[in-house]
């Protein structure tokens, strides 16, 4: 099979679902994106309009496809963690977590309580981070500029916490197979404690700005309706479903990483519009703050890595005194650890919905296959249904309420 470079620099072909010429004389086809500020990434939507009403919408994705699933097959199991950061770059720790959990399932290793609690805390901080970016940009799209600055102010604090723990602000790779990348740094309790103590009052601030804001209410209430049955059938997950009255959260229904030990509520709204999704996410931020507070106060002592010398790198001191530690170190660094042959599916509740990793091992030190079931990909399938017969101006609010990340969609 031959390929010339010119083939791929040609213009993007039109989406085949919609003909290039409108189907009826009074209709117009409008290209939204791929470079449109409110699509939050590189998404192209072909809209067919009649006046200002959207008759049909066809999303065209794949602009950010980087072949991550293929790349997984070239890397060792542990190196794969760095790829998971880059899938959904706003919820990187949720991706680290689900990948680690799925591989640990095959390895059948026990993760100590302290590592599990730290994982929960980091995943919840990541949820706050993601919801803050969502709220800031979503409000900015609808015209509330102040929100953007408020949200990014708090997001900066979270990124500083990430940097303190892992050395990285965004591509943290902090949750590793077998535990954590590093021991939680000295003094983290003060930093996280200070942030989480102030955070609920910050959410109050957001609510004060938006809840009684007539422009915000008019732009969000009754906008972006899609029925619960349609959403379930189309693969939509996460806060979208909870905004339509379905009480389903994977943290509660299939608890992982000791979530069952935390006391939190699953916020549910029944409006099924942009407003309800906004209410759900804001309450989720408060619940996440509760979880982080519990993790902070009840953080168990003990090791932060599993007792699995064939997976976890040994302590430097041990390497100098123990032969076995040196051998394990050599094996892990040069070859990578081997994972028993088998397959596993693990899902977690990410800020956007269900992330599921399906991994297949053939018993070697590299994954045979890693499939990511990402929430944005599933959610975006509901978009055409949601935009059908709505006004074009409302599409911006509806798009924002879905909270997709295109890196997550295209992988």
């Amino acid at each position, binding site marked *: 099979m*031959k*390929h010339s470079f010119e083939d791929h620099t040609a213009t993007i072909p039109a989406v085949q679902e919609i003909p290039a010429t409108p189907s009826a004389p009074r209709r117009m086809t409008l290209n939204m994106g791929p470079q449109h500020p409110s699509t939050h990434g590189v998404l192209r939507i072909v809209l067919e309009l009649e006046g200002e009403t959207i008759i049909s919408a066809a999303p065209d994705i*794949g602009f950010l496809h980087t072949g991550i*699933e*293929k790349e997984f097959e070239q890397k060792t199991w542990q190196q794969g963690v760095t790829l998971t950061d880059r899938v959904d770059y706003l919820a990187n720790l949720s991706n680290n977590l689900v990948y680690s959990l799925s591989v640990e399932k095959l390895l059948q290793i026990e993760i100590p309580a302290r590592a599990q609690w730290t994982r929960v805390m980091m995943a919840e901080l990541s949820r706050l981070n993601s919801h803050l970016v969502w709220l800031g940009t979503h409000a900015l799209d609808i015209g509330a500029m102040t929100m953007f600055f408020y949200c990014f102010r708090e997001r900066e604090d979270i990124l500083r916490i990430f940097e303190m723990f892992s050395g990285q602000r965004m591509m943290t790779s902090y949750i590793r197979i077998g535990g954590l990348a590093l021991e939680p740094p000295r003094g983290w309790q003060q930093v996280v404690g200070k942030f989480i103590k102030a955070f609920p009052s910050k959410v109050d601030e957001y609510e004060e700005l938006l809840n009684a804001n007539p422009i915000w209410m008019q732009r969000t209430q009754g906008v972006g309706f899609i029925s619960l049955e349609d959403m*379930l059938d189309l*693969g939509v997950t996460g806060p979208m479903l909870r905004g339509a009255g379905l009480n389903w959260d994977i943290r509660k229904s299939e608890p992982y990483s000791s979530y069952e030990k935390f006391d939190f509520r699953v916020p549910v709204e029944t409006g099924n519009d942009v407003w309800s999704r906004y209410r759900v996410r804001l309450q989720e931020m408060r619940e996440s703050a509760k979880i982080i507070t519990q993790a902070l106060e009840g953080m168990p002592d003990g090791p932060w890595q599993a007792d699995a010398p064939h997976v976890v790198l040994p302590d430097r001191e041990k390497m100098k005194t123990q032969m076995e530690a040196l051998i394990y170190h050599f094996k892990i660094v040069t070859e990578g650890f081997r994972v028993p042959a088998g397959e596993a599916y693990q899902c977690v509740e990410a800020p956007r919905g269900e992330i599921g990793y*399906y991994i*297949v091992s053939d018993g070697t030190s590299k994954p045979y296959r890693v499939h990511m*079931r990402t929430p944005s990909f599933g959610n975006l399938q509901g978009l055409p249904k949601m935009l059908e017969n709505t006004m074009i101006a409302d599409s911006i609010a509806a798009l924002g309420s879905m909270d997709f990340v295109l890196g997550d969609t295209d992988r």
Partner: protein
Amino acid sequence: MNHPAILETSQAFGESTSYADPERIVDLCRYLKDTEKFIRLSGITAVDLHPSEPRFEVVYHLHSLERNQRIRLKCRLSGVASPDIPEIDSVTSVWRSANWYEREVFDMFGIGFRNHPNLVRILMPTDWEGYPLRKDYPVHGYKYSYPSE
């Protein structure tokens, strides 16, 4: 769960995996959705077992909210299908979410889905040649291969 299309079932790590007859996958899925209440299709993917035969496994992850249960269905497909790519029936008539999932599998593995409403590439450009996630597809693609290699 008893259905004639289920060939064998196994349990591992608390997950149930069933091999199904690819010819009767639509019947089986309709039964699972309507009778067994697996109202969500969590995802469809495939595994390329090149060079062994049957080469492909199409993997369906089903989820029932009512029973809080997940199951995995797998169909074996031969890689030496005629005329060009192996084919299986589309389950879009059962779950509409299968639409994009199947397009992704088609795009990445070159597995055709009969009766799919719009089987075109979804992530790669529509004029792309080859199926990137097949094991015999080079990591750097065909584009950057140099004569000296």
